[in-house]
């Protein structure tokens, strides 16, 4: 159990360090990542979990 607790604690610290780094990233850089992500999501199937991006590209209402 101690070993598991240590792994959880290390993961938490790593996540916090990553978040801290992300906080400092310039907004425009974050937006670029988001834009790439959005563009990639749109090419997925409508039922890929992001609410019908194909429908969106065809001008229909997303689900």
């Amino acid at each position, binding site marked *: 159990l101690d070993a598991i607790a240590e792994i959880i604690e290390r993961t938490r610290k790593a996540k916090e360090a*990553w*978040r801290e780094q*992300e*906080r400092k990233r310039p*907004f*425009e850089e*974050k*937006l670029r*990542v*988001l*834009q790439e*992500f*959005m*563009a990639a999501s*749109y090419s997925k199937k409508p039922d890929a979990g*992001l*609410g019908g991006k194909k429908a*969106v*590209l065809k*001008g*229909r*209402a*997303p689900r």
Partner: protein
Amino acid sequence: LKRRRIINDWAIYGSVGYIYYEEVVQTRDIDIFVEVRAASEREDYGKVLREFKRYGPMVGDAAMFQVGSILIQVFPSTGYPLWEDAVANAVKARVECEQVKVVSKEHLIVLALIRFDPAKDVPRIGQLYKSADRAALDDVLRRFDKDGTLTVRLARVTEWLGRDS
């Protein structure tokens, strides 16, 4: 639109607002509050929507536009005191050579407390709260949380945060 006096002001909120302060998260669209002139609110909002249509098609009937590969939801803040306050107190940010405005961290928390989606809003409130200005947050809650619901919700989140750390 602001330069052409079609809108008074505007600000980003929602997930992209969160991204400004924290990490990149999955989102469907960019949410924008627009403040139109109060005298003819409906007419002005219609004018804003017509302007947006020039940049891309309207998707569905929720004032959402597809501009390139990005969906943008345009919401009028005029006439809604909390949203008006969020736009008035938004912070200035820079994206390349453009200046944009993002709703303050404290307003983002309050807006997320209203929806309080367990999967989306609760973890974000937790993250934003860690570095929020507590006095400013209390001030927003004091002015807009009339029945205390949002304060109770925030207390639940901070209690969970306490358990996590």
